[in-house]
């Protein structure tokens, strides 16, 4: 009896002492492992097709690109990655443009059994220019179904390659049964992608398209070894290539359980690890940055000039619910977190971190997403559009003057966003922080005057004698959605314009847009790459929605604008380009096809032990620049997760209290 009691007491004591909520093995505590979480596993990791942020979190880190973005500098600047330098455009007499990429020497893929296909016993091989050409052909392969065919169609012979590939496959079943890489060779490859030896690659564009270089900073154009595509075919227990990346980049996908966790390990074959003496810009922490980076601790001498990557491992854990994920962040088990809506007001006070958060040593990083949200007018509409001439223009100007985007942001997004003055978000070439759009502030007096000049005094339509009636088509029928859009309607009502909210579901909205049956609509655009062309093309007449099914939903068409747009598109960043951008801005300022609303802002939280964190905005690999202090993290975790023992004792006491009368009665009865 005595021994029995002592045994239980010892067991209980042990349980209390070992009590911990640490979800990770103790041995990992002192290692440089970054913990983060995800909600949904990416559908594919094939670099030619992966186009979501969640997929780029993996592909961006395991696939290295020829070029990349400078980590700190803004506006965004391209630096060489696998390539030795950023190539210059070489215009040819026939109007085409050539870009020459030269790969670094001695680049290796990760160790992988797939390479045995190229030679007995091989576990890796050199990264060669033909691998980049291979990936470009994969983008052009209709069977791969890449979402980014359009920009690469500027390459000479790109469309022809896709077409002849499809035709040969259709005509010849024996051809279609061959491995893809042999099929590509069979149709002669892409004319404008020339491989010169092991390390040189020439890209020939049929016409000037300087933005092509941005596409070489995205995982779409990473070198892909043909062995990996051939070996990982989903047969005989081998995974499919879309689930099994073969890395050229700083990290290797070590574990991939979509439903539970994804683990990246530092890649020992990466050039940054094998050749730190090169001081390659893509493998070294930068020593210069943008304004404010020094104050933010990003130009830390302990980091500057050091070889990358700093982290040993990155663990992505699946969290289906946002509240537990945020709790684990607060306990120190995740190193970074977004701000969930439920606790925004406890985390942020008056646009700053709350005192509770500051006490935890949490840092807040705000970053403007390179995107723009706007209200557009359908320029094909007889009342608000082109046909209305000067009157319609003044109407649009008046309506623009009534919208207070800052107040909208305050009400509906907790102030997360920058009110837009033009369509270009901060951080892009051509963005001008000092620019003030005369029609993008609230001035009801001026708006009323303009409205009267447009022939609608106090908003009264002279034809009906009643307030001018317009419709505002929105793709959101939820009650919250209606509130959001009612804000704009209420603003226009102050001018005396009676705007009717027509809320439909997204499909019906799309159909209205296809049929051109809309007047005013809300829309947004997130940049693919940080170039003004990627925003101004939204108003290019060739992109008109109703006529050409393009993204120019406003159906804006202005010859002067188009001319400048095409000139701007073909130029690299120089004063002339800046001038063109400003002239286009002036046209839009006056014409008002859009009411620019805001550029959304992302708020991210980081623990104090993370260093070298700068939010990217544009989806690009940044994990290699991050560093963390495991000792500090272990200390803080221990302090924040003191086990609360008293409920265990209280429970034990309660159990005894309940059992005691029974035991007493039992013994009494026996006597």
């Amino acid at each position, binding site marked *: 009896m005595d021994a029995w009691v002592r045994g239980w007491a010892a067991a209980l004591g042990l349980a209390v002492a070992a009590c911990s909520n640490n979800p990770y093995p103790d041995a990992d505590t002192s290692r440089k492992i970054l913990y983060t979480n995800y909600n949904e596993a990416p559908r594919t990791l094939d670099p030619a097709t992966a186009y979501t942020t969640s997929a780029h979190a993996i592909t961006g880190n395991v696939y290295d690109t020829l070029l990349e973005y400078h980590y700190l500098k803004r506006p965004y600047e391209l630096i060489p990655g696998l390539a030795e330098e950023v190539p210059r455009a070489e215009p040819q007499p026939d109007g085409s443009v050539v870009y020459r990429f030269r790969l670094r020497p001695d680049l290796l893929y990760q160790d992988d059994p797939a390479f045995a296909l190229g030679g007995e016993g091989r576990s890796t091989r050199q990264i060669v220019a033909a691998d980049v050409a291979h990936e470009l052909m994969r983008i052009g392969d209709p069977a791969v179904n890449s979402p980014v065919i359009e920009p690469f169609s500027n390459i000479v012979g790109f469309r022809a390659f896709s077409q002849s590939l499809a035709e040969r496959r259709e005509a010849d079943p024996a051809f279609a049964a061959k491995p893809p890489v042999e099929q590509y060779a069979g149709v002669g490859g892409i004319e404008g992608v020339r491989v010169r030896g092991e390390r040189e690659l020439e890209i020939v564009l049929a016409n000037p398209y300087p933005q092509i270089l941005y596409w070489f900073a995205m995982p779409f154009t990473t070198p892909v070894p043909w062995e990996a595509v051939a070996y990982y075919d989903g047969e005989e227990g081998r995974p499919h290539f879309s689930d099994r990346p073969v890395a050229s980049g700083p990290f290797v996908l070590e574990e991939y359980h979509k439903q539970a966790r994804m683990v990246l390990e530092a890649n020992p074959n990466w050039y940054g690890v094998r050749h730190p003496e090169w001081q390659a810009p893509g493998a070294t922490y930068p020593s210069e940055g943008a304004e404010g980076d020094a104050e933010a601790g990003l130009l830390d001498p302990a980091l500057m000039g050091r070889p990358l990557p700093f982290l040993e491992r990155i663990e992505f854990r699946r969290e289906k619910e946002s509240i537990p994920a945020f709790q684990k962040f607060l306990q120190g088990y995740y190193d970074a977190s977004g701000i969930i*809506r*439920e*606790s*925004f*007001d*406890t985390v942020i006070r008056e646009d700053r971190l709350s005192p509770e958060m500051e006490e935890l040593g949490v840092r807040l990083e705000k970053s403007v997403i390179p995107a723009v949200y706007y209200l557009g007018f359908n320029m094909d509409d007889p009342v608000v559009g082109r046909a209305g001439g000067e009157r319609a223009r003044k109407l649009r100007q008046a309506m623009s003057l009534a919208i207070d985007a800052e*107040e909208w942001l*305050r*009400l*509906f997004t907790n102030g997360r966003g920058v009110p837009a003055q033009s369509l270009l978000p901060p951080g892009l070439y051509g963005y001008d922080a000092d620019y003030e759009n005369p029609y993008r502030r609230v001035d009801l007096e001026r708006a009323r005057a303009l409205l009267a000049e447009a022939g609608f005094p*106090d*908003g009264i339509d002279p034809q009906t004698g*009643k*307030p001018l009636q317009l419709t505002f088509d929105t793709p959101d*029928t*939820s*009650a*919250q959605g*209606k*509130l959001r859009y*009612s*804000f704009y309607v*209420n603003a226009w*009502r*102050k*001018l*005396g*314009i*009676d705007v009717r909210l027509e*809320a*439909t579901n997204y499909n019906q909205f799309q159909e209205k847009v296809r049929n051109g049956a809309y007047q005013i609509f809300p829309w947004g655009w997130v940049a693919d790459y940080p170039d003004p062309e990627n925003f101004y093309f939204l108003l290019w007449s060739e992109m008109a929605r109703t006529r050409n099914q393009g993204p120019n939903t406003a159906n804006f068409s202005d010859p002067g604008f188009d001319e400048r747009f095409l000139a701007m598109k073909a130029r690299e960043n120089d004063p002339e380009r800046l001038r063109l951008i400003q002239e286009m801005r002036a046209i839009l300022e006056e014409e008002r096809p859009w009411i620019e609303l805001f550029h959304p802002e992302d708020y991210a939280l980081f623990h104090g032990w993370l260093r070298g964190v700068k939010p990217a905005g544009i989806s690009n690999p940044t994990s290699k620049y991050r560093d963390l202090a495991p000792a500090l993290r272990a200390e803080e975790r221990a302090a924040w997760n003191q086990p609360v023992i008293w409920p265990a004792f209280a429970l034990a006491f309660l159990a005894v209290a309940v059992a005691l009368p029974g035991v007493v009665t039992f013994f009494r009865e026996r006597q």
Partner: protein
Amino acid sequence: MEPHVISNVVVVLVLLAGFGIAAFVRRNRMWNDALRELWRRRPVAIVVVAIYAGVALLDSAAWMGGVESGEDVVAAHEAKSVLDRLFLGTQEKSYSAPFADAEFYGGADLAHPGSHPFGTDILGRDVLYLTLKGARVALLIGGLTSLIAIPLALLLGVSAGYFGGRLDDAVFFLISTLASIPGLLLLIALIMVMGQSTFSVCIALGVTSWVGLSRVTRGETLKLRELDYVKAARALGVSQLRILVRHILPNLMHLVIITFVLMFSGLVLSEAILSWLGIGVDGSWGQMIDQARDELTRSPIIWWNILASGTALFGLLLAVNFVGDALRDILDPRTLRDQP
């Protein structure tokens, strides 16, 4: 015709119908006794329902002009109801708590401090005003849907029960088919097909809710047509139509009234569910509750919106159900026997 004119005509018709029914009840001994009994049993519930109806009528009688144009210039050109006029110029900029002097976030001064007993919503509208406006929507949904569903149910149920044979088979087949389709799915499908408006929501609700009443009236008619006085009338050569109007329908009236009252609360509740799915009627309590979904997860919590709309919905449904239960006790002969 302008919507507010239709609304005014409806108000007049409702009032006339009310007076007509009152005059009828005064002369009819049975109904007079029944209503007296109802009043004796549930005075509070009846007063509550009457208040809701009164608010709805106040919000339905509207006319143009006489509106001081404040911030909202368009409002001066729109017909405004009595209720609208009472709450004119109570607009704030954003959330404020009940009886607060300052905005909930940011703490800016209110334009009308301390004058919002239920606070204001995200767009600064007075929540009491929005809640009162919800009464009209709720009664409109209940009333209009009943006007669609009850005649349909009576027509099909009575003719099936009275004439029998093939017609009965056909009607019962229709009833079984409708009853076997999940109600909510059918509702959503109908609204998607007809487009989203108050009227289509009412039609959809009407189409899905007549089945129960139809089944009851069919059964009752089957019984009634075999009674001696109906047989006698038939033997005397009275026309079918006359028998239906004279002998069958009046004897179904108590069922209709009980079902109407009990169905009413179900309809208002169904609309709240539809609002939750984003296909409800603008300005209903369901929509207010839906809007408040986000507000409950905010911290500090915005509670007055959902409290006001939820209480208003709850109050109406509770009162209507009390009245309905009492009516059933009084009108249904089977329960009547148990009374002391």
